[in-house]
């Protein structure tokens, strides 16, 4: 019987750890995001989310996503907007805040779940990785440069311009050259 109690205790402990690690929010709570007011002294960054490449490869897109609801006709999911930069904010923090504020769907993979130790954006506005061909997915650039590492590792500074772009060709169609250089 002693062993039974030990086993029950262990199971309770595991459940407690799991519950402790989960954070449940209602829909309203999730979208209720505080965006700081922009004043002359605050640091700010710009963020935009675009999927222009899908419009060029529309026939590759999964049939259930072929609607204006998911792919806007101009390819702009979030137009260039200015947000306040809080100290230590990474690219992911800004994206998270902006999609919550604008009620755009977003799914990410946590930093512990992959070998890169960084958050990976799986889908924005129901457009997922591999939704538009086998080489498609979300990628980002800061001031026009592809940093080539995860979005939760890039700490921003005042005036940075973040662009989230959807690629259908592993970055080549949005101007990411590092893959091509490595291959040649």
């Amino acid at each position: 019987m002693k062993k039974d109690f030990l086993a029950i205790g262990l199971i309770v402990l595991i459940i407690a750890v799991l519950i402790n690690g989960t954070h449940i929010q209602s829909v309203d709570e999730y979208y209720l995001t505080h965006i700081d007011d922009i004043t002359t002294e605050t640091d700010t960054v710009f963020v935009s989310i675009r999927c222009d490449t899908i419009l060029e490869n529309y026939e590759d897109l999964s049939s259930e996503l072929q609607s204006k609801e998911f792919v806007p006709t101009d390819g702009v999911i979030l137009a260039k907007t200015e947000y306040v930069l809080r100290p230590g904010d990474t690219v992911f923090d800004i994206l998270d805040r902006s999609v919550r504020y604008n009620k755009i769907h977003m799914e990410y993979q946590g930093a512990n779940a992959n070998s890169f130790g960084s958050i990976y954006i799986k889908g924005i506005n129901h457009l997922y990785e591999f939704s538009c061909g086998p080489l498609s997915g979300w990628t980002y650039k800061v001031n026009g440069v592809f940093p080539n590492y995860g979005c939760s590792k890039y700490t921003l500074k005042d005036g940075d311009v973040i662009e989230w772009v959807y690629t259908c060709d592993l970055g080549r169609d949005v101007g990411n050259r590092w893959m091509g250089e490595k291959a040649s």
Partner: protein
Amino acid sequence: MKIFSSYHPVVLLCYFLSVTVMVMFTAHPVLLAEALLGGICFCTVLERGNQFFRNLAFYVPLFLMIAVVNPLFSHNGMTPLFFLNGNPVTLEAILYGIDIAVMLVAVMYWCKCYNIIMTSDKFIYLFGKAVPKISLILSMALRFIPLFKIQMKKVSVAGKAMGLYSSKSRVDKVRSGMRVFSVMVTWSLENAVETSDAMKARGYGLKGRSHFSLFRFTARDAVLLSLTILLTAIVLTGTGLGSTAFLFYPKITHMSFTPFSVVVYVAFGVLCFLPFLIEVKENMKWKYFVSKI
């Protein structure tokens, strides 16, 4: 002896293949629900009465587990219900989880029925001549789980008779179960080798070796086979025209109730309930004749 198992093996194989393959490749809730209900009804007729509840004790937790796990890992969908660690838990993902759970449980029920109906002699009859090695391996693989269960019971009973595993503690029970399991792994490997050796010693697969079987293709086999092919053709035509397609992400498709799609649903429903209806009909006939005596 159940009447459905007295049909010709070719007919039975065609029937089970068409049902299970169609269930595995569709996500349409109506078709899956029909397959699940048909499978449960057929299985209940084939097995003894109390086995129904024992099955439920296994399949209900499995069903719930699959249904709950999907929304935890899949966050696609238009209607978020709440947010878990910053990722949405959506209605679509929950419904898709339930749909997949129905599919898995339905396939498992049908495989259970297949195992009861298609005994290994029928399987060997069908494929023993054409592909002797593969058919032997397949028939051994298919009877592996039932045989494993029987032998497992024997081993644990023998252990109990020797006074092992008598502790009341749950942990000890689990540990003794693991011990029986490890015995079983060794036994099953040995048994597989012995079986194939025994078959070889009997000249299985040699040229000129004749087979004896009692299976005869009669008129009612032809009726069942043509009915199976007809219904399968209707459903496959429906699949070709897209009326069995159903998508959950990012938005749930509206279920189509056009006359043709209703015909497809009914055809698949008839296909799934066919063995159950045959058994019921035979039972009623039997009771009727008994009452006359």
